[in-house]
């Protein structure tokens, strides 16, 4: 009787809730999604190719621009990979290691805050956005006072750190960390037990642990599905083995569990930070660089090293020919890119409104997806 038509909708690249320039080609029947096809590449900058033409230290600012809301962890992954290739991982001074951990954990909190802000505003709750940005600004201020930049930090060097901590920095961060848990409670009071929030997130985009592993998903989405896999614990780097923290995991693998996992991860990050303060005060000031040659020329070979970025496993694969000062080939394994691949499977059968929730819950950064 009626002529039922499927409608094709371009969701993005210019769309308020695709978190950048993601384009999803939707086939919808009414509001129901029949097929969702992510189309990426709008932010492709050829970062990997650029790495082949630059000396290793010159590459670090370029890693900032991949996951531009979590550049400290990008730096960390790169410098650690080069250090591993040079075999100086064990030489990094304790103080530099602790500074790296602190910056990464602050970065993890700020990245999760941004995720919470956008995820909540995607689902129509506009107030958490401003509350989270209030705290995120403070974290960015800490970055600024350490390295002068707020987003693209360029705050790590091969063999150590560029500068020692500025005067009073630790005290400021400590004051922030002390009050931050109350802030998390504040965000949670707006969302966690809110019925509409639960209705919008529970049972949406369920990923079974098997599926999540098959898709190669890492980070909070994987842990939300109940798989206990955190590279800080599974393949420890820096001084994480000395620090006490728990890995939150979800049960149902839906959007709500991923939300809870990230909220708990912020709490664990503050816990890690709290342990860092006495440790870093015990180290001698200024001892932030390992003794390495001025010219960085790793021996011939290849190495893959990965760290736990806020979004999942961030891996660098570098091939060195041992002759030049730049990489023969550098490949990045960005967590967002891999996690995004599960979007069509998660979105199928849900409504258009849920697609927004799903894009939010995967927590993609297009700079990292497209590189």
């Amino acid at each position, binding site marked *: 009787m009626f002529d039922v038509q499927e409608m094709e909708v371009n969701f993005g690249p210019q769309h308020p809730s695709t978190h950048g320039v993601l384009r999803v080609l939707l086939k919808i029947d009414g509001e129901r999604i029949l097929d969702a096809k992510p189309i990426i590449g709008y932010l492709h900058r050829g970062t990997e190719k650029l790495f082949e033409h630059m000396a290793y230290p010159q590459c670090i600012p370029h890693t900032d621009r991949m996951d531009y809301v979590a550049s400290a962890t990008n730096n960390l992954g790169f410098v650690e990979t080069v250090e591993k290739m040079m075999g100086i991982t064990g030489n990094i001074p304790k103080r530099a290691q602790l500074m790296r951990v602190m910056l990464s954990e602050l970065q993890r909190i700020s990245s999760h805050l941004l995720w919470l802000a956008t995820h909540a505003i995607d689902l*129509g709750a506009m107030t958490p*956005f401003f509350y989270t940005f209030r705290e995120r600004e403070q974290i960015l201020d800490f970055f600024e006072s350490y390295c002068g930049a707020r987003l693209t930090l360029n705050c790590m060097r091969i063999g150590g750190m560029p500068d020692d901590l500025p005067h009073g920095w630790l005290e400021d961060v400590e004051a922030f960390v002390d009050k931050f848990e109350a802030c998390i409670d504040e965000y949670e009071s707006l969302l966690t037990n809110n019925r509409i929030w639960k209705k919008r997130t529970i049972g949406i985009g369920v990923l079974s642990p098997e599926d999540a592993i098959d898709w190669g998903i890492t980070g909070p989405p994987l842990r939300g599905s109940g798989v206990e896999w955190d590279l800080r614990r599974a393949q420890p780097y820096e001084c994480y083995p000395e620090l006490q923290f728990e890995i939150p995991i979800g049960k149902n693998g839906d959007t709500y569990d991923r939300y809870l996992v990230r909220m708990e991860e912020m709490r664990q990050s503050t816990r890690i930070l709290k342990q860092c303060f006495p440790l870093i005060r015990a180290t001698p000031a200024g001892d932030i660089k390992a003794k390495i040659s001025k010219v960085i020329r790793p021996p011939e070979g290849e190495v893959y090293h990965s760290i736990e970025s806020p979004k999942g496993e961030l891996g660098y694969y570098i091939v060195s020919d041992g002759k030049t000062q730049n990489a023969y080939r550098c490949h990045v394994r960005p967590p967002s890119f891999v996690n995004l691949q599960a979007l069509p499977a998660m979105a199928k059968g849900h409504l*258009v409104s849920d697609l*927004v929730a799903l894009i939010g819950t995967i927590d993609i950064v297009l700079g990292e997806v497209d590189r």
Partner: protein
Amino acid sequence: MNKALMTYLIWPLVKFLIAFVIVQVIVAAMNWVERRLLGLFQARLGPNRVGPKGLLQIIADPIKFLLKEDIVPASAEKVAYFLGPVLPLIPAFLVFCLIPFGPPPTFTVTRVNVGLLLIIALTSTAVYGIILGGWASNNKYSLMGGLRSAAQMVSYEVPFGLSIVGVLMITGSLDLVTIVRYQEVNAWNFISQIVACFIFLVSMNAENNRTPFDLPEAESELVAGYHTEYSAMKFAFFMLGEYSMMIVNSCLIVTLFFGGWTLGMFGFGLTTEVLRGMGVFGGLLGAAIFFTKVMLFLLMYVWFRATFPRFRFDQLMDLGWKFMIPLALANIFVTGIFILAGQERLMYWIGLGTIAAAAFYLFRPKRIPAKQKVVHAS
């Protein structure tokens, strides 16, 4: 001059124009109040650059709308595209003729003995403009916004209407003035009709496409919904229509459930008679009471907007059809039983009990947010 002409044309017209201007001022002020209040809720300032406390923003915004280029998409259906923003304005403005802002006869434009029915009939036509606008824009997001809006407004029209039936049954009149006069000698209707009042409050939010029911213009999903393609004054007309309808609905809930211009119950307090005794001042006081109450409900809209996430479309429909409508029907049924049994006073106690229970539930000592489901594995 012909006396009939004065009574039936000139005076109503003058009164309407005064009411219209007041309402337009409230619409403009509402915009500023909403943004400042949202700023308060959200740990930021809100507009504070133009004039003292940003008050001139009220004037700056319309000027901006007037000066912007009016873009009509090339593939739009021109006539319908033009009608879209204009149509919702007509019922929104007409309704103000029917609402008693203060003690009659001075502060009512017209007194119609089926006023309530007329208001519902008028307000339900507002959806045409949105559907037309969404369809005529020739944009898929606009179309989806228009369709959502159509389904939503039609669905919530039903509980909206049904919740009023309870009030009709106990007051026995469709005349808004009579309804208010009933409330000043008996209790305000929200006590005896607490369920109806709740349904009315929710459905008026849904009718106006406000958070948490703002799906038709869901920014994060449909870009801007039905008004994606509208710019300049056409967009301003949509906003004007939306805010006018907010005021209409707030006026309605005040009139139907919260005693209109009076500030008294059981014949005590500032009732119509007392206000009339005060002469012109009393009338103005009544109008002031009325608009204060309206303002409180307008602030409630803002409060909701700052607090709630957005419903999903199917959940919205479920809430409307599976919860609100049965609840409204049950309310009519129960009210009918009470009226038949002649126990209308008993409804006051039940209403007060419900309000007390709700207050007790809302202000109960808060549990520490439970760490649900997240398990610490190590």
